């Protein structure tokens, strides 16, 4: 059962080949064996997981199961889950047990899925290597001397090492897609507003979006069906009709299943700055898409080069404010010794936050300061608009946009940790998608020097179903996504 897709596990559970309790226990056993080295999970609570599994078995026995009922799914430790320690990868929330459920957690519970545990992540989702976690770095199952990417590095490593059939992630600047690319997974960041942010600990509110990380596009569709939907507790949640994100997967089969599809190749994605091994895999994927009947057109996103600088103004600005609540007053970490209120604040935040989080709080505080606001924050917002306009223009010429997810494969632990700018450039191809609020995916498309390479697919607003279909067709024709590392 280990290594099967959600689709296959759903069939096995429905056919009574295995119970949810057995399936959950199998994965818990594997976590117990592998996690000490991989460090993909921050919190595992077998009792809670198995209690959910027993309830799922009862549902299945009553014939009330859905596509995910009884399937264990790992949850990024950014989602508040009632009764679970929820740390967001930070010492600040090291002992925080959430008294309530995030909407995403609630929805998976309603679907009958089992919460398999809380996965490791960069502290407050700030990082691209999972090295900023207070709970230690995660090792890439493909090469344990390398990073899994970030910030959803724990989720990526858990699925890649087959400790979990699937996991949730969140993506503010690439945090689902980049680790999916570095760990040979399929990951989807939906259109901003499709998945509720209620209970998802905020990094940069206008960019954060939760999504699935799994082994196939079809599995991502099954998960998104459970995760998406309007939520009146999130004012930025979009009120739309419920849709079946898997609805296009059965369509247009045959010799050239993607004929009529126009794939845009932004010239800015194919210039300098991308590793040759990565680019070779991407080119091969383009050839495959042509074989599947798709047509390719060159498009341009002229303001792409401004995406990283604009992002590193907007995201830290929002973060500096979002993280103000961690002040030691009501919950979370408080410094043990302090002289007065200001001293308590200073020491609590100095001791409770790691270096990268502090760096971003400082940047964010600076760009919002009197006299700098117009030059940085407002200017970055203007750039954000330009970038969104670029995509709108590009989508007049094509249906989906394709390029590399990450400019490089998994890098060594510690390799970029000392150079924040190098680290920030890991997200050079993903960040613009968040700024525009568009849906984006990463799917496995080959290996470079034995390490996975991810292919990025970007869709127009609300084009998740189409993106999943475009990914699914590729996965029907290739088997990169089925490759797993040696355990």
């Amino acid at each position: 059962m280990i290594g099967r897709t959600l689709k296959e596990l759903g069939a096995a559970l429905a056919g009574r080949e295995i119970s949810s309790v057995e399936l959950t226990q199998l994965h818990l056993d594997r976590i117990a064996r592998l996690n000490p080295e991989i460090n993909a999970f921050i919190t595992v609570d077998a009792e809670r997981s198995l209690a959910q599994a027993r309830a799922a078995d009862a549902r299945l026995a009553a014939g009330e199961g859905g596509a995910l009922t009884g399937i264990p799914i790992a949850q990024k430790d950014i989602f508040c889950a009632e009764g679970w320690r929820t740390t967001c990868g930070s010492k600040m929330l090291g002992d925080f047990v959430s008294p309530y459920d995030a909407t995403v957690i609630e929805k998976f519970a309603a679907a009958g899925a089992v919460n398999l545990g809380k996965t490791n992540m960069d502290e407050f989702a700030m990082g691209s290597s999972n090295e900023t976690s207070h709970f230690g770095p995660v090792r890439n199952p493909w090469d344990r001397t390398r990073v899994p990417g970030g910030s959803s590095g724990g989720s990526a490593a858990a699925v890649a090492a087959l400790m979990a059939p699937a996991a949730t992630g969140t993506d503010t600047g690439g945090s689902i897609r980049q680790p999916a690319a570095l760990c040979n997974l399929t990951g989807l960041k939906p259109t901003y507003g499709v998945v509720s942010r209620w209970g998802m600990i905020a990094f940069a509110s206008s960019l954060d979006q939760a999504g699935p990380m799994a082994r196939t596009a079809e599995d991502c569709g099954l998960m998104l069906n459970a995760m998406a939907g309007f939520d009146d507790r999130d004012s930025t949640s979009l009120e739309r009709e419920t849709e079946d994100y898997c609805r296009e997967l059965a369509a247009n089969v045959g010799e050239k299943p993607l004929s009529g599809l126009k794939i845009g190749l932004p010239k800015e994605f194919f210039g300098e700055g991308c590793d040759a091994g990565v680019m070779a895999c991407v080119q091969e994927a383009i050839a495959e898409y042509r074989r599947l009947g798709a047509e390719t057109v060159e498009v341009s996103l002229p303001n792409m080069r401004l995406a990283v600088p604009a992002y590193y103004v907007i995201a830290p600005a929002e973060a500096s404010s979002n993280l103000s609540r961690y002040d030691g007053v009501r919950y979370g970490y408080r410094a043990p010794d302090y002289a007065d209120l200001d001293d308590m604040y200073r020491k609590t935040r100095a001791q409770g936050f790691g270096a990268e989080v502090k760096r971003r709080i400082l940047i964010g505080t600076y760009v919002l300061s009197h006299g700098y606001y117009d030059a940085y924050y407002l200017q970055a917002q203007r750039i954000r608009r330009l970038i969104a306009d670029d995509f709108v223009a590009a989508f007049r010429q094509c249906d989906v946009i394709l390029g590399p997810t990450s400019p490089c494969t998994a890098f060594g632990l510690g390799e970029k940790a000392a150079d924040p700018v190098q680290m920030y450039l890991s997200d050079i191809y993903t960040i613009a998608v968040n700024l525009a609020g568009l849906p984006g995916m990463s799917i496995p498309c080959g290996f470079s020097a034995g390490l996975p390479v991810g292919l990025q697919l970007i869709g127009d607003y609300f084009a998740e179903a189409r993106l999943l279909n475009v990914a699914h067709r590729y996965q029907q024709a290739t088997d990169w996504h089925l490759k797993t590392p040696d355990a």
Partner: protein
Amino acid sequence: MNHWEVVIGIETHAQLATRSKIFSGASTAFGAAPNTQACAVDLALPGVLPVLNRGAVECAIRFGLAIGAEIAPKSVFARKNYFYPDLPKGYQISQFELPVVVGGSVAIQVGQGEQVYEKTVHLTRAHLEEDAGKSLHEDFHGKSGIDLNRAGTPLLEIVTEPDMSSSAEAVAYARALHALVRWIGICDGNMQEGSFRCDANVSVRRPGAPLGTRREIKNLNSFRFLQQAIDYEIRWQIETLEDGGRIQQATVLFDPDTGETRVMRTKEDAHDYRYFPDPDLLPLLIPRDWVERTQAALPELPAAKKRRFMADYGLSAYDATTLTASLEIADFYEATVAVAGKAAAKPCANWVMVDLAARLNRDERELADSPVSAAQLGGLVARIADNTISNNIAKKVFEALWNGEGASADEIIEKQGLKQITDSGAIEQLIDEVLAANAAMVAEFKAGKEKAFNALVGQAMKATKGKANPQQVNELLKKKLS
């Protein structure tokens, strides 16, 4: 002091009378045990998000319409960032660049008697924001307690132009605003509980000179303190300047015990609040039809009602102003007139403003818990107007109504036999008896002692326990004695 001009602007925080908080579903009721009315959103737990309470927006629209302001079709919530233990998120959600209400004005009447003058105070803006919690510094042995019940309570911050030039004008404005927000039902106006509190920006200058440096007096929660604080501040600023000193921009607190203001912080240690649009909230869009629906549901406003009372009921400006001091009084008055009849509008005004007010005052009751209803009072005034009872008997009937001795004036008059005697035959007979029994007084009167006449009237009234029509008694007695 004559050659100094005073410039005052007022910022008022009016707590909006919504049942739940501005960005969460927790209750806004006052007086609950600490932290029992603070939900996950109010506590700023990780992952929580604000959702705007439309009721609070409705209040802002009502206010904007009542002061003739523009209701912004699009306004924006911004974060005001600063650290304080009773500010759970580390920022307050407020409105900064684009407020919901722009402009408008409030008419005020200043002074008393001959000195009364009218003035218009222009408003800059009014915006929606959330209140903070409360720090409790007692009872915790060197530590502070935090009560977050108040955190997230909806406030409308109402900002004037620097249009006032004395503490009397400032107080008149504050009173008018206080009456208005209660009138349109957006704020209970309870100043002790902090539902309505004012900050006063005060500066002085030589006539014709540019504006002086202002100092802001924070959190004045009574009209008396507002007056005292401004008066002290004006004196202090003028003395400082006349002694060759300079005013430093500052925020000050008023100490009611000493009657003085003291500096809380100066401009140097002012915060940089790093305002920016709250990414958790969409811009607030108010379509025209929402404004129109609110307009249609708005009660008649005090100024319009005052004009109508003068025109329809023939009341003086003074009476009309008094009877439109609150919607409650105005409604009570109109309900009284509705029963007593429009012809008795003036006596109704007197009964509400004088007799009822005095009786309420004696028992320390509010109009809302008056034992005598408007319908009962109207029934009473009607019986005076149709001569069923005299004014003096009416006071007895009123007292009986107050004490619950009957459901209506008619019932009490009937039960206690208080109906005025107007049968001239009966009165004539009575007078004959009085004259016969008081021969000495009759003689005194005939000897030229005018006072004896009044004594005879008194005897006649006494004999009927006051029920005889005094006018008839007078006339008949005069006739008999002439």
